[in-house]
């Protein structure tokens, strides 16, 4: 299930052919999901970094870092995905931010989208969803 501008695509893993590697920041506190998403994104030829909560991504951007794509979990300690996304947008960050959440109710997802996400997916991320996100990023 996905919300936002991303479109669906075939299930095959495709490496997006770009001159420069897409940089991805995974914002996720669960070590299991960190590992899965990190390996999955690396398989698609992206450069991946991982942080464990929303405050860390805000601090990274404040220190001058920038990423093409942020995969933002919703529930995290210290600062959750909603607050982190709101903060990043208020700082003028225009990176693509895609929510990834365990919550599946429409109302919950729409609420998360209002923080300024480009799209939101219910866990788990899979090859099809990642392809859709990376294609959307490439097109923009």
């Amino acid at each position, binding site marked *: 299930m996905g919300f936002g501008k991303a479109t669906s695509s075939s299930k095959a893993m495709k490496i997006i052919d770009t001159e420069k590697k897409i940089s991805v920041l995974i914002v996720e506190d*669960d070590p299991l999901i960190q590992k899965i998403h990190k390996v999955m994104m690396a398989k698609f030829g992206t450069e991946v970094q991982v942080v464990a909560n929303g405050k860390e991504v805000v601090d990274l951007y404040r220190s001058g870092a920038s990423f093409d794509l942020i995969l933002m979990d919703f529930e995290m300690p210290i600062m959750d995905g909603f607050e982190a996304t709101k903060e990043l947008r208020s700082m003028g960050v225009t990176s693509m931010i895609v929510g990834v959440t365990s919550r599946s109710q429409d109302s919950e997802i729409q609420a998360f989208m209002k923080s300024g996400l480009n799209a939101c997916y219910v866990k788990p991320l899979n*090859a099809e969803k990642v392809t859709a996100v990376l294609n959307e990023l490439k097109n923009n």
Partner: protein
Amino acid sequence: MEREKTDIFSRESQRESGRKGKQLSGRGEGLEPQVAEETARESSAKTGLPLWMLGLGADRLRADMNRLLALLFHQGVLDEQFLQLQQLQDETSPNFVSEVVNIYFHESEKLLRNLRGLLMDREFSDYKKMGIHLNQFMGSSSSIGAKRVRNVCVAFRAASEQNNRAGCLRALELVEHEYCYLKNKLHELFQLEQQRVLAAGVRYPIQN
């Protein structure tokens, strides 16, 4: 779906056979004779199988693994997400699936202990905290393809949202039951894989 599952294990057996630096492209090729003999004798010692049976053992074990996986998919214990994990496993991360599953077991047992601890407290009222643990457990269960575990969590979450302690306790027992079943079956699967890797140490038995 069946072909995809067996193809995944074919890739894994090729990876294992390439361990000693030579790739197998089919049943006609083998390891360097000295290395093959050493591997065969090691495998024979470890499995207790006579040398001439090793090749047969690996194929039978692979068939057993495929049957077990097919059963788990048929029962709805696992879903396609588990296949996605297997597709992420390669030479750069050869133990990815077992590492991920072991993290899942470790984290899940902590979460289940937390949930039981919360519900056993007579003065329990922090349903929000319980919801957080539950969401994390649901997310990680979905991410490894643990479909039935995830599905029984849905009822748990519904009871939690209604502040229904008795309902939560019933749901927790169901979750623990499904989790135990999943854990036992995945252990069985990984044991079969270990045995298959040992037995597949050499493609053809060495003739004395």
